[in-house]
């Protein structure tokens, strides 16, 4: 296996006195889907947010250890935060389109980051919407408000918005928790398409989703990474008793 695109080395994170992440050593493989599971408060969302330094915005957070993306420590003083967040995009629990048109939602990031040429925006909008399989449904109403779309379409649009930044890594924080089972399955299918070009890290409360949609699974408990392995292995013969207890519903 090629070296992980994200590596954490002895990563610890504190919210003031409370230690939310404890000595996390993990390697996330490139162009695969890695799911992070564990009971509420285990640190999985905190860890996800470390990968593009979203925790920086919270007061009282201190981090020790390293998170390397493409071999570079993202906590090094020289890190360009904006470049980091271009490289590491994020999709949230509830779809959060801007109250703008479908078209403007896609071009927003391009404008803010002054990326690309305005004359090429149409082509980029088309490409992004095609990548999330929305183009055929929306091509005739690109000027309508994005807020009129179904939740699933809104979530796809938010993924498309991330894709226009040409990230290498897409972080997903419970991206299907607001969606019904059919919409959930469609997003999972989309993830399978996207992993050909992107590395995906997903936090999910839904263990079945982790099992069926991911290639690797990280199980976290009380701030520690208990087990990391291929999803097929973790869900059939976990190495740790704690993992077995959790995935078979004995606690959590």
């Amino acid at each position, binding site marked *: 296996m090629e070296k992980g695109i994200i590596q954490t080395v002895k990563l610890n994170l504190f919210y003031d006195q409370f230690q939310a992440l404890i000595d996390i050593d993990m390697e996330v493989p490139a162009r695969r889907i890695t799911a992070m599971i564990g009971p509420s408060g285990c640190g999985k969302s905190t860890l996800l947010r470390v990968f593009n330094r979203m925790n920086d915005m919270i007061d009282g957070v201190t981090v020790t250890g390293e998170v390397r993306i493409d071999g570079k420590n993202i906590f090094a003083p020289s890190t360009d935060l904006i470049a980091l967040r271009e490289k590491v995009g994020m999709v949230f629990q509830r779809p959060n389109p801007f109250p703008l048109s479908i078209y403007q939602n896609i071009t927003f990031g391009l404008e803010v980051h002054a990326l690309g040429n305005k004359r090429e925006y149409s082509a980029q909008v088309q490409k992004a919407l095609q990548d999330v399989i929305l183009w055929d449904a929306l091509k005739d109403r690109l000027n309508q408000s994005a807020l009129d779309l179904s939740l699933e379409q809104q979530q796809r649009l938010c993924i498309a918005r991330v894709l226009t930044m040409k990230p290498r890594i897409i972080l997903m924080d419970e991206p299907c928790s607001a969606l019904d089972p059919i919409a959930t399955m*469609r997003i999972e299918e989309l993830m399978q398409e996207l992993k050909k070009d992107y590395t995906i890290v997903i936090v999910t409360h839904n263990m079945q989703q982790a*099992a069926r949609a991911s290639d690797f699974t990280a199980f976290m408990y009380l701030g520690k990474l208990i087990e990391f392995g291929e999803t*097929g292995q973790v869900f*059939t013969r976990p190495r740790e008793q704690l993992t077995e207890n959790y995935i078979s519903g004995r606690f959590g």
Partner: protein
Amino acid sequence: MLREHFRQELRQLEQELLKMGKRVITAVRESVGALQALDVERARHVIADDEVINGCRAEIEEKTIQLIATQQPVASDLRELIAFLDLIVNLERMGDHAKGIAQIAQMHGSQPLLKPLIDIPRMAERVCAMIEDSLQAFLTRDIDLAQAVIERDNEIDKFHERILGELLSFMLHDPEAIRRATFLIWAAHNMERIADRATNICERIRFLVNPDDKTFFHP
């Protein structure tokens, strides 16, 4: 588009099952060939290959269990995965029976066969066709073909009875023939068991296609 990934995994498992089936068919043919020629070396190959067949079973079983654990299949998807588990057990046992025939070829020693083999090789050809058709019926969910294979088992049973009768009369006439006749009876019996396993596969296919068909619970 829905669950495309899961469908791909199933298709891949089918290909692996087919490969395992082909190995079993080769083992059956080769075991009878080894017996017919009393070729100890050929028999040794069949015995060694049985380990490969067992390995196929272990591999398919592991992948099937992983799919059940990770994909939460229901209805026909679930029956299909359970069918895989059943089919590989049947194929693996066929391999064991072929190995048994190869071992008979080894045990037989240098004495010539009691009689030139005619019916057992014919039986083997028909049994191999049954295995092939049972796998084809599985891949295409063809219950008519599955039913035809089940009916062909009667012919194999008749072969078996005829061979048994013939060899018993050899034994009655000449006690010296008992040892060699017993070897051939074992071989014919193994072949008959292999055909039964192909029948099991076809009954499983009927259940897979039509879950109300429980006839295979009453052999």
